[in-house]
C-alpha cells in the first residue's frame, strides 16, 4: 500500500513539474504547448549525454540540462508562439505540435533512436522505513521537485519579473498598459517552464532507468491531464493535479493492471471536469467568447470556387487516377479521401460550430470498429453497416462529449483530447468486444454489383463518391438555417443564447452530425485495410485531422480536401528522405502554420 503510494508520488512529481510548465505557459501566452513533452525528452537525453558521454557529476548535469532546455524553451517561443500572437490560439497550438514533431525526430537523429540506460547517479534501494523500501533517489526526486515548486512560488510572488508574469497571466492588456514588457515576460515564462520540464526529464530519467528520444509522449499526455485536472493556469493546481494523478494511476494500475493506465488517467480527468468544469483549483471564469477560434473568422474569408471549377475538379478526381496514376499513388489517394471525410466532420464541429476538437479519432475509431465487428462477427453486409457505423459514432460522440457543454475555451479541447485517448484506450482494454490489441482482422471488402471492391482504384472510386456526397452535405448544411445558428453560437454564445438559441443543444447536434460523418469515414477506413487495431486511432490521427482543417481553412469545406491532399500526400512525397522524413515533415508543417495561419483556402479580408 504505502510503497504503491510512494511510487505514485515520485512518478507524479514528474507530472507535476511538467504540468507546472504547461500551466505557466498557458497562463502567460494562452497557448497549450504541445512541445512541452519534447522538452522533457530533450532534458532526459541531454542529461544522459552529459552524465554518460561527458561523465559530469549530477549537479553539473542539472546545470547543463537547465541551459539546454532553457534555450530550447526560448527558441520555441520565438519561433512558434510569438509570431502567431495575432493569430488565434489554435494556430499556436498547431505550431507547437509541429515543433514537437521536429524536436522528437531531431533528437532521434542526434542521439540515435536506441533506448538507453540512464545512470541512477544515486542509490535506489538503500533506505527502509517500516518494511517500505526506497532509495536516496526517490527522496531526492521528491525533495528537488517540491523544492523547485516552492522556488517557483517564491519567484512569482517576491520578484519583479515573477510579479510581471502573474500580471500578464491575469490580464494581458492591462499588464501591457502598465508598461510591462510582454515579449520579455513571455520569453521568461517559456524559459522557466522549459527548465522545469528539462529537470523533470533528468529526474524522470533516473527514476525510470531507461530513456529514448520518444520518452516524452506518454509522460506528456499524463502531464496535460494533470495540468487540466488542477485547473489550467493555476500553479498550485498543477502541483496538486500532478501528484494526485500519479497516486491515482499507481493505485489504479495496482488494482486493474498496467494496461489500464491510460484509461484511468483520462477517465479521471473527464470525471473531474464533469464535477468541476474548471479543474480542482481553477477559477470559474464568466462566460466568454471561445478563445480558441477567437477573431479567426473575422480575419479570414474562404476562397469560393465557381461551380464549373468544382465540376472540373470532381471529374478530374475520377479520371486522372484512372488513366494517369499507378496503384501506389491511387492507394495514397484513398487515404487522402478518407482523411478528407474525417476533416469534413471537423469542418462542421470546429469550423461551423466553433468547438475545437482534439479527439476526432474517437468517432473514426467507433465507426471503424462498428463496421468491422458487424461485418466479421455477424456477417452483416457492408452497405448496411455503413449507416449503422455512422449512427453509433454519432450517438456515442454526443454522449461522450456531453459533459463538456459546461466547459469553456481550452477545456473543451482538452476534454475532446481526453475523449479521443479514452476511446483508443477502451479499444485496448475491452477485449471481449474489440479483441483488444489483437484488433479485428479479415474484414471483408464490400461488394458492388456483385463485384468485390478491393483493388486500389475500385476502393478509390467508392470512397471518392462518398466524399463528394459528404462534401455536398456539408456545403448544404453551412448555408442552411442550422448552419447560421451554429455560426451564431460560434461567434457570440452570449448573444446567441440571449436570442433564445439553446446553445448546448446545437453544439450537441454539431458533434452528432460530425460524429456521423467521421463514423462513415471510419467504416471506409476499416474496409480499406481489412485490419484494424487500437494503435491505428492514436492522438496523431486526431491532430492530423485538425491540422488538415486548419491548414485548409477552418471554415472551408473545400479546404478540408485540399488540406488532406497536402498533409497526407506530403509524408509520401518525402519518402526518399528515409530517416529525416518526419523531421522535414515537421519543419514544413511549422512553416505552413507560420506563413499561412488563415489556411491555404482562406483569404485575409482587406
Amino acid at each position: 500500500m504505502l510503497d504503491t503510494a510512494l511510487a505514485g508520488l515520485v512518478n507524479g512529481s514528474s507530472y507535476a513539474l511538467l504540468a507546472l510548465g504547461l500551466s505557466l505557459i498557458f497562463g502567460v501566452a494562452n497557448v497549450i504547448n504541445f512541445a512541452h513533452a519534447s522538452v522533457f525528452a530533450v532534458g532526459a537525453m541531454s542529461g544522459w549525454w552529459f552524465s554518460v558521454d561527458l561523465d559530469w557529476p549530477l549537479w553539473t548535469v542539472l546545470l547543463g540540462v537547465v541551459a539546454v532546455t532553457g534555450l530550447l524553451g526560448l527558441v520555441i517561443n520565438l519561433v512558434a508562439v510569438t509570431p502567431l500572437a495575432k493569430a488565434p490560439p489554435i494556430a499556436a497550438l498547431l505550431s507547437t505540435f509541429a515543433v514537437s514533431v521536429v524536436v522528437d525526430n531531431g533528437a532521434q537523429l542526434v542521439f540515435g533512436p536506441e533506448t538507453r540506460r540512464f545512470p541512477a547517479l544515486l542509490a535506489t534501494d538503500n533506505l527502509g522505513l517500516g518494511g517500505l523500501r526506497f532509495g536516496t533517489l526517490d527522496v531526492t526526486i521528491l525533495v528537488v521537485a517540491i523544492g523547485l515548486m516552492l522556488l517557483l512560488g517564491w519567484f512569482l510572488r517576491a520578484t519583479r519579473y515573477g510579479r510581471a508574469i502573474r500580471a500578464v497571466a491575469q490580464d494581458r492588456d492591462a499588464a501591457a498598459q502598465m508598461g510591462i514588457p510582454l515579449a520579455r515576460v513571455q520569453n521568461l515564462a517559456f524559459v522557466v517552464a522549459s527548465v522545469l520540464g528539462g529537470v523533470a526529464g533528468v529526474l524522470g530519467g533516473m527514476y525510470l532507468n531507461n530513456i529514448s528520444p520518444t520518452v516524452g509522449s506518454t509522460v506528456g499526455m499524463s502531464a496535460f491531464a494533470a495540468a487540466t485536472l488542477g485547473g489550467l493556469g493555476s500553479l498550485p493546481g498543477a502541483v496538486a493535479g500532478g501528484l494526485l494523478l500519479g497516486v491515482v494511476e499507481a493505485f489504479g494500475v495496482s488494482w486493474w493492471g498496467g494496461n489500464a493506465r491510460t484509461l484511468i488517467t483520462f477517465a479521471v480527468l473527464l470525471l473531474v471536469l464533469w464535477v468541476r468544469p474548471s479543474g480542482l483549483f481553477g477559477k470559474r471564469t464568466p462566460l466568454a467568447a471561445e478563445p480558441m477560434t477567437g477573431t479567426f473568422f473575422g480575419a479570414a474569408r474562404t476562397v469560393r470556387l465557381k461551380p464549373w471549377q468544382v465540376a472540373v475538379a470532381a471529374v478530374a478526381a475520377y479520371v486522372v487516377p484512372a488513366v494517369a496514376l499507378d496503384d501506389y499513388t491511387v492507394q495514397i489517394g484513398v487515404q487522402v479521401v478518407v482523411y478528407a471525410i474525417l476533416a469534413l466532420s471537423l469542418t462542421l464541429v470546429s469550423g461551423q460550430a466553433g468547438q475545437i476538437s482534439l479527439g476526432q479519432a474517437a468517432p473514426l475509431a467507433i465507426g471503424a470498429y462498428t463496421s468491422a465487428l458487424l461485418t466479421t462477427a455477424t456477417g452483416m453486409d457492408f452497405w448496411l453497416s455503413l449507416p449503422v457505423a455512422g449512427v453509433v459514432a454519432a450517438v456515442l460522440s454526443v454522449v461522450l462529449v456531453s459533459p463538456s457543454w459546461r466547459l469553456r475555451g481550452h477545456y473543451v479541447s482538452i476534454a475532446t483530447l481526453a475523449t479521443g485517448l479514452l476511446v483508443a484506450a477502451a479499444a485496448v482494454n475491452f477485449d471481449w468486444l474489440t479483441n483488444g490489441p489483437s484488433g479485428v482482422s479479415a474484414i471483408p471488402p464490400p461488394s458492388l454489383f456483385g463485384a468485390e471492391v478491393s483493388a486500389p482504384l475500385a476502393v478509390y472510386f467508392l470512397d471518392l463518391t462518398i466524399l463528394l456526397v459528404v462534401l455536398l452535405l456539408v456545403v448544404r448544411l453551412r448555408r442552411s438555417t442550422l448552419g447560421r445558428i451554429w455560426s451564431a453560437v460560434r461567434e457570440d454564445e452570449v448573444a446567441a443564447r440571449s436570442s433564445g438559441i439553446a446553445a448546448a443543444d446545437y453544439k450537441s447536434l454539431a458533434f452528432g452530425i460530425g460524429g456521423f460523418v467521421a463514423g462513415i469515414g471510419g467504416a471506409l477506413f476499416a474496409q480499406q485495410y481489412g485490419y484494424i487495431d487500437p494503435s491505428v486511432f492514436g492522438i496523431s490521427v486526431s491532430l492530423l485531422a485538425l491540422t488538415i482543417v486548419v491548414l485548409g481553412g477552418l471554415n472551408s469545406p473545400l479546404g478540408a480536401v485540399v488540406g488532406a491532399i497536402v498533409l497526407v500526400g506530403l509524408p509520401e512525397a518525402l519518402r526518399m528522405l528515409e530517416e529525416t522524413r518526419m523531421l522535414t515533415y515537421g519543419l514544413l508543417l511549422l512553416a505552413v502554420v507560420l506563413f499561412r495561419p488563415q489556411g491555404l483556402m482562406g483569404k485575409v479580408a482587406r
Partner: protein
Amino acid sequence: MISRRGLFTAAAGVGATAVLASCGRLSGDQAAAAPAPAAGPIFFGVSAPLSGASAEYGKIWRTGFDLALDEINGAGGVNGRKIELLWEDTQSDQKQSVPVAQKFAGDSRVLAELGDFASPASMAASPVYEKAHLVQFGFTNSHPDFTKGGEYMWSTSTTQQDHAPELAELAKSLGTKQAVYYINTDWGKTTWKLYEEHAKKSGFEIVHSEAVQADGSDFRPSLINGRDKGADVLVFIAYYQAAALLTQQAKNVGLGQAKIALPSSAYSPQYIALGGEATEGAQLIVRFHPGDPRPQVREFVDKYQKRYGKQPDDFGAGAYDALKILAWAVEHSDGTREGVRKALLEGKDIPSLLYGPFAFREDRRVTTPKSTRLVVKGGAFTLAGA
C-alpha cells in the same frame, strides 16, 4: 449557369466512364504486371520502421542486411547480378505499410519483400502482396496468423506456439511461484495465452499475471502486486527495452531475490546494457546466440563484431539470415516473383545461419530446433549450466 444537380449528374457520368475505362485495374488481380527485367540489379523491398517508436529495430535490421549484402555482392552477386534493397519507412504503422506494399507491388523490379517489423503492420499489407504474387518475408512476424494470410507470406520467426511452452518450462525450472508480465500488444497477448495454456496443463503455479503497457515506463505498481503475492520467478514477455525496465524496477521494489525468465525477444546485448546489474542471473531461451560453436555462426559473429564493434542480437542475426535466404531463393528461381515463391516452397536444404539447412513447413514457417538456454553472468550472456 449549370445547375448543381446537372453538374453532379455529369460528374457521376464521367466517373462511370472512368470506371469502365479502367475495368482491368478494378478487378484487383495484379499478377499480370510487367515482367521483371532479366538484367541489372535484383531488388528487394524493405518495409521497416526507420522513424517513430520502433526506429531502433529498423536500425538493427540495417546492420544485418548490410553485412549480408556485402557478402553476396562481394562474391559477385546472385547469378552475376547484384542485390539492392529499396528501403521504405513505415514506422511499423499499418496506415503506412499498405501504401508501401502497393509501391513494391507496382514496381516490377522488386522480386520479394522483407518485413514489416510488427505483425499487425505486416498483416494489413498481406492482401496487397498476395494479389501481386510477391513474397512477403516477415522474418520477425511471430503472430500465428501471419503466414495464414496467403501463399506468399513466409516467415523464419519462431512462432509463439513453439516458444511459449519452452518459456514456461524455463520458468518452472527456476522456481515454484510464477508472476507473469506481458506487454499488451498482439504479440504479448498471444504468447501469454499459449503460455497460460501450457502452464495450466502442466500444473505450474502462476500467482500473478498482468498485462503492462508496451511503451510504459513505470511498472512499479504492477511489480508490487507480484511481490505481495510471494512470486519467486518473474516472467517478462516483452522486448528487451520493457524487459530491462521490468528487471530493474523489480529490484527496486524488493524483488531482487526472484529469478527472471525471458523469451528470445528480450535477447539483446541492449538488455544487459539497459538493465545493468539487476539483469545478473536472468535466464533466457533463444534460438540464436553468438557463442554457438557452428563455424557458420563463428564467422558471422566475427564479421559482425568487427564491423559494428558489438555482438549481434536476435534481430540482427534474423535480418542477415532472412536476406541470405531470399538471395538463395532468387538464385534457385527463374528470376520471377513467382519463381522466388516456388524456390522457397520446393527448397529442401535451404542454407541458414539460424536453422542450418532446412525446409519450410507446409504453413510456410520453420520448425524451430530446440532452443538454447542462456544466463546473464558477469554482465554477459553465457550458456546456462556451462
